């Protein structure tokens, strides 16, 4: 049985962030509910934040924290506007199916 390292190496954090990011993309690709898709985006953002924090741990400076802080702020703004848009879309089309809302075509 392999000996578990006493501390998780940085690469684990990065791999975790990669996994989460890919999960987010998967959610984006496979879910059809706008809100879920939106949440998948948030998941991706979180994954990126994790890698930011991990890197700033590695580099020993807290700029990464600042970046992820800004990411949070932007995410908040984005959520506010995005959800408002979703509300209006639902008001106009009575659906949350992302495939129904394809009038951008052609």
């Amino acid at each position, binding site marked *: 049985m392999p000996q578990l390292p006493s501390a998780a190496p940085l690469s684990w954090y990065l791999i975790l962030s990669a996994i989460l990011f890919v999960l987010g993309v998967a959610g984006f*690709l496979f879910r059809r509910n706008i809100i879920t898709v939106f949440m998948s985006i948030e998941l991706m953002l979180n994954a990126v934040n994790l890698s930011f924090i991990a890197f700033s741990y590695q580099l020993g400076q807290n700029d990464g924290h600042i970046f992820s802080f800004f990411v949070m702020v932007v995410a908040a703004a984005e959520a506010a506007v995005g959800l408002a848009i979703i509300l209006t879309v639902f008001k106009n089309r009575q659906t949350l199916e*992302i*495939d129904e809302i*394809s009038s*951008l075509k*052609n």
Partner: protein
Amino acid sequence: MQTSTETLLASQQLWLIPILPFLGFLLNGIFGKRLPKAAINVIACGSVLLSFLWVLKTLNALGSLETPYVEHYYTWIQSGTLNISVDFAVDRLTEVMLLIVTGVGFLIHVYAVGYMAHEGGYYRFFAYFNLFMFFMLILVLGANFLVLFVGWEGVGLCSYLLIGFYFLEKFATDAGNKAFIVNRIGDYGFSLAVFLIAIHFGSLDFGRVFSQVKDMPVESSPGWITAISLLLLVGAAGKSAQIPLYVWLPDAMAGPTPVSALIHAATMVTAGVYMIARSSQLYLHSAFALNLVAIIGVATAFFAATIGLLQNDIKKVFAYSTVSQLGYMFLGLGAGAFSAGIFHLMTHAFFKALLFLGAGSVIHALGGEQDMRKMGGLARKIPITCVVLFCAGVAIAGVPFTSGHYSKDAILDAAYTLSPWMFWLGTFTAFLTAFYVFRALFLTFFGEYRGTYGREPVHEHSGHGDGHGHGAIHESPPIMWIPLAILAVLSLVGGFINVPKFLEPMFKLSEGELPSFVSLGPMIAGLTGIGLAYVFYVLAPKVPEQLASAFSGLYVLIYNKYFVDELYDATVVRPVVDGSRTLLWRTADAELIDGTVNGIGRTASGIGGVLRLLQSGFIRSYAAWVVAGSITVVLVMALWGGSR
């Protein structure tokens, strides 16, 4: 007064003078549609009146302006050593101009209230009017060439807007375009001059520039001063309708009559004169430019006067007389008697504004009729207008003790000192002036009524005209004739204001003994002209036709304004038009540019047609594409050593 001069000078708030009309413009321009006419009138006239009063207050506070008084507001351009700031300055010249602009301007505003009473676009008209006042005051107050240029362009714009006020008629818009384009030529010269000044003096401030010039020795002044002066002259000629750029002014009469009075007689067209007087130092340092000014002036005066002889449109007559009077002013300037030029500017503002307004009142009375051949015998029908117009007439004809007499004399004296032939030509022009002005007046007021308006109720509007349909010929309302009366008084007694004396600290008077005929000549010429006009058009109306048939060639030539328009059309306009049509449009634009653009468009749409297949409208497939793309990018970077 003297003790507290500093504090007083410190706080004159000159900016209020132009800002007040600007506020009027904003109010009328923005809310005018909803405002009642009364409110519009109050705003329009009130703002101008206020700034007039403020001018009076300021000048009173400033007392005797031995040295110009400057107010600095803020630095506009600061690049390297060149420092251009927005300053306003007041000296005696500015003082005169301010009084003319605001005073006469106010009177014309009041008149316009009556004249435009039944026009469409009422608020628009007064908004433009106030805007014009704003720019004109900027022009007059500006303490450096750039600020002056701002006002210069601004008044050009307003002139364009107001000439084309009846933008539904083609000729009006055409006239507006003509004025604008011709002025562009002048402005081009002016801007070049400004650049040269900036280059050579490192400043545009009047004070600094002219003091530098003053220090230069007159005899060995460098060539570029002449260049600057000539370029400025081009600008002035454009704005003040001098040969060869005068052609726009007669057409500018397409605008409403108050516009002709305010812009194309009293204020804007004199901007060129003002500018040359302002930069007199430069001209004093280049004799050539100065002489050219004089020559252009006298030539313009003469030609315009001759054209004026045979015009039948009453406003056209006065338009040409304006051109010729401006020529007089230039003659005065060129003769070195800048103060005389300004003097004539003032008197001319009085009587020419009066002439136009009176003409307007006649037109108003005849429901828009402008052709003198359809007038006549109106003296009994509209007596007040008749009286005031005759006041103006005697003034412009230089009858003794009227304003025109003194200013014209001053100019002609200076002209004589410059060179006698100019004096004689000027005198002859004075005769012509008196002749055509009184021709117009006699045709209008004496003899039998030849028109149709007022006979049968239905009346055709020639061109625009006021749309109120009461048939009878009628005297104008008081709001129109009271300003006329004031102006009439001014144009009679305005000559006793000794402007040259007032301006002496700036422009030294030319002393020297002159032969007696120099002062008598113009007077006699004027009186002869009046008399001859009386003979021709009242006593023996047949004579003109006989003369016309006798000198038919000359008649045709003059009647068609020396074919100048046609000449320009042939030499300048059509070549340009054709050139641009064939070369620029057909070749460059249609072939080259359009071809390129369309080609790009076609390629793009072709590619798009392919890519369109990708754009299914399903966000998820877009996402899939993004993923695929990012994967490839990352792969490439990873494998080919992009990322370490």
